[in-house]
């Protein structure tokens, strides 16, 4: 009805705030699926960046599969002539290193561990952040103060040096442990921003309704709060992944992390120390691992950007601005 007091025009059209109190839980769940899973997926796929990002990512997953099932030769020294240039021979398409290792096999066989590391690191970072953020934000009071103080301290420790010291101390070999180690304090900043989101969500009418009906805290957090955080979490999952790529390969390159693990950073390190800096002939030894790194992070960034566009109301609003009047009308009719 046009005369309802709430029916003012600036009612935001995104689902985030459009959920009203008088909708039943079942309706809300199906709406939740529609609004948070199906529609975003469609919008995300419509964005070129998401498509390109996913496609590039698929290439890396493909490489990982090739490596895991041993569909391409494993790297070993003197399997080929030394320093063959790239694109010179079919058997070594990307050329070889100083010690006669096929560069393509090096790159392919590094992929599974890197992907594993990325997934472990980002799951860890976002997982801890969600737990800390929702608990602190929803419970408030002493829980909030303690958790946030811890976050503040953790946030103040510079990541890379801490990781280096921890790596030296524990000398981890397992890629999953490595991933977690690299993002050991990444959760703090993310947890803090999630907390402030939870603070807003918990004031929403349906959360308040659940609370008044005596629904337990874990249930409210799981059913009402976490689903609303998912967009933000997904985007940050991707960014955490990118950080793992950057940091891990940097540390492998530096030689802080164990050489026994196959990694583009290790290849880069050998190239750097093996004299590839001094001659153009060995440039490919440096370049191809770099390209592998950049491709993966490009894929992650594109994915993050594409999803950000879906989830970020301000980007979305802007997108839809040219058809604002249409929307205004749709909006108006919702009241009937």
């Amino acid at each position: 009805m046009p005369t309802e007091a709430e029916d003012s025009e600036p009612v935001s059209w995104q689902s985030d705030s459009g959920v009203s109190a008088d909708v039943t839980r079942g309706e809300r769940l199906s709406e939740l699926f529609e609004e948070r899973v199906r529609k975003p997926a469609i919008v995300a796929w419509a964005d070129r960046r998401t498509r390109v990002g996913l496609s590039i990512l698929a290439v890396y997953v493909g490489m990982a599969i090739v490596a895991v099932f041993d569909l391409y030769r494993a790297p070993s020294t003197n399997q080929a002539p030394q320093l063959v240039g790239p694109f010179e021979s079919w058997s070594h398409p990307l050329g070889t290193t100083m010690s006669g290792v096929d560069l393509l096999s090096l790159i392919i066989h590094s992929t599974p561990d890197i992907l594993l590391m990325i997934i472990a690191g980002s799951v860890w970072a976002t997982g801890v952040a969600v737990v800390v953020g929702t608990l602190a934000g929803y419970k408030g009071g002493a829980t909030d103060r303690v958790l946030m103080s811890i976050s503040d301290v953790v946030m103040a420790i510079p990541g890379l040096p801490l990781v280096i010291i921890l790596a030296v101390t524990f000398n981890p070999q397992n890629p999953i442990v490595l991933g977690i180690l690299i993002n050991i304090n990444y959760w703090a900043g993310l947890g803090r921003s999630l907390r402030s989101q939870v603070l807003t969500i918990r004031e929403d009418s349906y959360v308040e309704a659940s609370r008044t009906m005596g629904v337990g805290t874990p249930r409210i957090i799981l059913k009402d709060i976490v689903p609303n955080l998912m967009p933000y979490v997904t985007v940050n999952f991707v960014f955490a992944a990118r950080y793992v790529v950057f940091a891990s390969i940097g540390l492998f390159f530096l030689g802080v992390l164990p050489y026994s693990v196959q990694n583009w950073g290790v290849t880069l390190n050998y190239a750097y120390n093996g004299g590839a800096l001094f001659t153009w002939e060995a440039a490919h030894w440096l370049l191809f691992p770099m390209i592998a790194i950049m491709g993966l992070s490009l894929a992650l960034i594109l994915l993050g950007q594409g999803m950000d566009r879906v989830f970020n109301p301000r980007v979305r609003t802007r997108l839809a601005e040219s058809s604002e009047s249409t929307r205004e009308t749709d909006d108006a009719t919702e009241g009937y």
Partner: protein
Amino acid sequence: MTTTSDRLHRAGDGVSDPILEVKNASVTYDDGDTYVLDDVTFSIERNEILGVVGESGSGKSMLASALLDAIPAPGHLSGEVLYHPDPDTTVDVLEFSDAELNEFRWAEVSMVFQGAMSSFNPTMKVGAHFEDTLKAHDRSVPEGLEFAREILSDLYLDPDRVLDSYPHELSGGMQQRALIALSLLLEPEVLVMDEPTAALDLLMQRSILLLLEDIKEKYDVTMVFITHDLPLVASLADRMAVMYAFELVEAGPRDQLINDSSHPYTRALLNSTPNIDAPLEDMRPIPGKSPAPVNVPAGCSYADRCPLATETCRESDPAFEPVEAGHTVACHHWERAAEAIELTFGEAAAVGGDAEGDPQ
């Protein structure tokens, strides 16, 4: 000038000394494919309060922006907006140069937006907004601020506190009143208000309305009050205009428009209005949806929802017809509207002013 008065008499809207005249104003988007304001013609009498009513998305905000030639970027405004600073002078607002437009806006015709919070820069003190405005119009800042204090006091605000506060430090009602003061700063002739009270609670709405009447008297401004809330504006306006789907459908003096409404939409709107006295079953939501700007139907745009609609309605757009002096309506079947759609709050509405008590 002769053509102007000719049109006026033909339209029969009863305006004798217009301060603003809008003629055939249309706002289009997407290279003319989408109409968000469709051939609207009306006038504003000097020193009156004109209430414009329409549901959200009916194009009433566009109408407000059109009066200041301030349609948001990709939109295109055509038609005429004539401004009469005095009864013998006419200027076309749409012909202004940028510099002239800058001088015209706020100094001649000023505007209060819906949502006062978003109208202030959050990182600037309220007082700085006043100073910025004065400087932009080459006015004396000390004198202007002195005047600002006077308006703020008239709006029952503490001038020193308000001017020295950041927007977020003020309550919604205080912000809204500060914004009204800001809009009056350059002593405009016309004040356009777009849903100025939508974000406020009923009590605050009520008190701001009362203030507006005093302000209007003291500062001698013409007011255009745009809202979706029919009873609210009915308590304030001298004349009213009803918009539906980007067009004007009915206009006339307040009492006639309420008691003798002739457009089926206006009557339906009155019936859908929550009224604390009326039993719930008497409330009649308007069935159907208002058309989107891309598919405004040929003929009368209300035809799809109108109980009186006939083939004629679907085929030809109704022209404005005079109901009585100053009261015009765009409907083929306005004469049948009164008997076909009974006003559910009937007796209450018969005493025109009573509608104003409704929101409470």
